[in-house]
């Protein structure tokens, strides 16, 4: 039997759920309500209000990605270290949030940050002024980091775990102190993992919705929220589709840019 037969169901799946929807999105983006050709919606994407939402989305996603990288890299290193591999349970604890529904996690974060939430209750108990936590950009970023951190840790962890310890010993042997071992060997060799991590965090972060609505109290509309509104509230499928396309183009461009940095050209250890 030819091996290509096996790809049949997969091809069908792709046509039904990837290619067809993309064609619909394209169709709606370039038509008006009556079904006639129009670039009206595309032009709307370039209006200042939309651009502002877009820039805010990218900014928050960027901050979120940077924080995830700063927190995630050391965490991945700890998890990948030899002494740690005995404690499988701790590894599971790091990944556990991923198994829970993200809305649930976000509601939990809400109850933590609310005006009368857990943090403020504790602060008041000790006689401090309550803080305005919810409805700030910080709260949105916090929610995003909390949700997406495992996606940064996992690929970096995989890259570090696969690294040959003898390569690290070789670097020490050649005169590299621990800092140099990290900057000259460990980090460069883990770059494919870092790039996967960045991609896996940045992409969902830039398209985030719900988190910004729940934790930002609607003060910070993001691209994802805007698309949701167009479809569900404004019933303007044309503009919604145009926005989706706009976002897709941005993501494709940013992945292309990232892959250009990757010295190994995605040959090794990356998950993408």
């Amino acid at each position, binding site marked *: 039997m030819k091996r290509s037969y096996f790809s049949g169901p997969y091809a069908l799946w792709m046509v039904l759920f990837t290619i067809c929807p993309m064609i619909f999105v394209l169709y709606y983006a370039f038509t008006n309500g009556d079904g006639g050709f129009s670039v009206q919606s595309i032009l709307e994407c370039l209006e200042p209000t939309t651009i502002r939402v877009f820039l805010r989305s990218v900014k928050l996603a960027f901050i979120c990605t940077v924080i995830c990288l700063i927190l995630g890299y050391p965490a991945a290193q700890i998890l990948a270290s030899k002494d740690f591999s005995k404690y499988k349970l701790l590894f599971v604890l790091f990944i556990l949030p991923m198994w829970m529904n993200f809305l649930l996690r976000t509601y939990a974060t809400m109850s933590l940050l609310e005006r009368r939430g857990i943090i403020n209750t504790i602060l008041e108990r000790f006689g401090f002024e309550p803080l305005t936590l919810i409805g700030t950009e910080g709260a949105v970023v916090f929610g995003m980091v909390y949700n997406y951190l495992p996606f940064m840790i996992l690929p970096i962890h995989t890259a570090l775990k696969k690294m040959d310890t003898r390569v690290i010993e070789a670097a020490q042997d050649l*005169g590299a102190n621990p800092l140099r071992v990290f900057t000259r060997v460990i980090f460069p060799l883990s770059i494919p993992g870092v790039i996967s991590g960045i991609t896996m965090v940045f992409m969902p972060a830039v398209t985030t919705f719900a988190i910004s609505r729940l934790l930002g109290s609607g003060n910070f509309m993001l691209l994802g929220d805007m698309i949701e509104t167009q479809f569900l509230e404004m019933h303007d499928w044309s503009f919604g589709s145009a926005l989706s396309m706009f976002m897709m183009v941005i993501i494709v461009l940013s992945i292309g840019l990232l892959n250009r940095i990757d010295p190994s050209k995605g040959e090794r250890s990356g998950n993408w």
Partner: protein
Amino acid sequence: MYENTKLIELKNISKSFGDTQVLKNVDIYIRRKEFVTLLGPSGCGKTTMLRIIGGFEFPDEGEVLFDGKDIQSLPPYRRRVNTVFQKYALFTHLNVYDNIAFGLKLKKPEELLPNEKKITRRKIKAEIDRRVKRMLKLVKMEAYEKRSVDALSGGQQQRIAIARALVNEPEVLLLDEPLGALDLKLRKEMQVELKSMQQQLGITFIYVTHDQEEALTMSDTIVVMNGGKIQQIGDGKSIYDEPKNAFVANFIGDSNILSGVMLKDFEVECAGHRFECVDEGFAENESVDVVVRPEDVMVVGSDVGMLVGEVESVFFKGVHYEMKVNTGDFTWKVHSTTMHPAGSRVGLSIVPSNIHIMRRMEAEG
């Protein structure tokens, strides 16, 4: 040839991993410019010893001296030794040139250019370039400097690993089974090249292998190890000709090892025969190991031999025939250049000086 000064000394080193003791009270010194081979079966502790010298393991007990100074507290990057790792451990994110330049780029500028008053970036770069090029020439890899190390064959990777270590001009080069992954022909070529490099550069080599032939080919001194203990130290010839115990005899080349009884000085009984020998100083009727090399067993006519037996099997080995000859009490391994077909009766003779008497090994040995 090596100098008669001790460069590295290990004193009473013991090391355990969990419940297994891998080194037991090891004492050894290594002289300047010496080619020392640590030889033994896997798990004998030879690699651990190398890693202790390199600074990657710490002994539970004992001292490691370098040039008379204790270096146990020095991390690997401060030691004046470099290692060629098993399976090379090259940096896959760097090309051939940058792999070799790795150590040089970490050196302080004044180390790199000791005679230069005004050190500039360009001078450093030129110096690194000069040294890397010299190494590439030494290992005959000039044409490959811009290649990715992944694109090299095993033998080429090996050369780069050696160049990467040697470019730092270490006083001691540690080699951990560096030729293990190469095919036989390439391995023989590299053995000769390594030996000539060592003599040309005049540095100490400490070489770990389980291949006795490799050890005999290259070393000034062979350290035979087993079960975490040093069995014998000496040059190749003395270890081959005068093995200290049955383990060494068996590990270095083929041997017939028999249990025998020392009847008195110069007379031993084994395989149902009394042999004249050249050893003395054993207790009367002491149980001993008797070792005879297969090439030292002479095949003679069945009427004149000390022993008479039947040929059980014959294999052609290129230069000689390897035969198994059963004399009733023992089956002898015999190397001979003349063929005697299986089933034929032959006589065996051994001259007294080829019979090696050894004290019984301890049970653990």
